[in-house]
């Protein structure tokens, strides 16, 4: 039986490093993708992901079993990203930039990879047009894969507020994505 997240956390809280490694294996790839979407280099993303798990370990004692682990770690992830941008005093334009890799089945076909890259650029532009409150919801829900409840927990919002922001974001995303096509929706 694969061990549930709660059991792994309980064991990791007890100092079981194998359980903590299992947690990293389970969640690291999603965290790394999130970091890469928010930071400007792969090296930065990897460094931030490593830092995240060190923080997770150090704060694991405060995690309440039964609470949402993904909501917790992506909250830490978002804070880490924000602190990194702040500490580097990057300009606002860069801070607003959001990189996105569109999920797709792995493919060795170069044309598929090129298409993925094209869509990533398209998404990057579309998401960057969103106001910060909508963008955060989109990042957690669509990109990190949290559900409505987890997104609400991570952002300190009610579930209805998350739904409302997603509703507003959908319309803006559609407009932005179709606007990039000449002669289409304006």
């Amino acid at each position, binding site marked *: 039986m694969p061990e549930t997240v709660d059991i792994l956390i309980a064991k990791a809280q007890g100092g079981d490093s194998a359980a903590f*490694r299992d947690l990293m294996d389970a969640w690291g790839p999603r965290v790394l993708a999130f970091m890469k979407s928010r930071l400007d280099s792969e090296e930065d993303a990897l460094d931030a992901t490593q*830092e995240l798990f060190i923080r997770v370990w150090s704060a*694991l004692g405060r995690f309440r079993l039964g609470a949402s682990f993904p909501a917790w770690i992506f909250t830490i992830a978002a804070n880490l990203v924000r602190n990194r941008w702040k500490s580097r005093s990057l300009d606002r334009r860069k801070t607003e930039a959001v990189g996105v890799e569109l999920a797709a089945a792995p493919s060795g076909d170069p044309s598929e990879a090129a298409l993925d890259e094209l869509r990533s650029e398209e998404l990057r532009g579309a998401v960057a047009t969103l106001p910060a409150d909508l963008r955060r919801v989109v990042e957690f829900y669509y990109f*990190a894969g949290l559900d409505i409840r987890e997104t609400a927990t991570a952002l300190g919002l009610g579930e209805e507020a998350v739904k409302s922001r997603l509703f507003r974001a959908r319309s803006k995303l559609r407009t932005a994505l179709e606007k990039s096509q000449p002669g289409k929706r304006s």
Partner: protein
Amino acid sequence: MYYSVMECSGVEALVGTWESGGKAEAAALAAARDHVAACGECRARFATLLAFVERDSVEGAAPLLRPLPLPPGFSDRVIGGIEERRRSGALPFGEGRRSLRFIGIAAAVALFLVGVGFGARVLVPSRGDSVSVLFVLDAPQAKSVSLVGDFNRWNPAIHVLKRRDPSQPWELKVNLPRGKMYVYDFVIDGKHWVPDPSVETKVDDGFGGSGSLLRL
């Protein structure tokens, strides 16, 4: 509805439904994908949007961000980073074990409850690599009681509790390796899985119920 072929207007309507908060049926989504694959104009307009539609419409759909594989040695570097900060004092030793102590205390309280209640009791607390634990459950109506946990692969046939007579609690002594944390349940009459009533700290047991934590 049957969607063997979808026209451009159908894809546009599907995206419009999503924009309004609606979901797409699986068949409609598949037909839209087929159309977008064949129609260059719709591909340019809707291919990316369909990923959003799928995320909102399909139970368990993958997030739009593709998970990225961790490089080899990643977890070693994290563990190394933790150790390094511990040594330098940047991360106080045991910081990450606070809850372990908390959980340990909760479990220990359960252990000492044996005199007045029931639960798991450490019989041989400090010698050797294993610890002898007495599991006790008061279930006078039960016809059988088993112990299941991650230490016996949740198999109720391995550790069966016994009682001297119907007025006594069910008991079983089990030797378990020291230094680990265990999750366990009791199984009553072969079908009712219950956590240890004397242990406050419960976790998801992976079978839709709760398990009790025991740290040795």
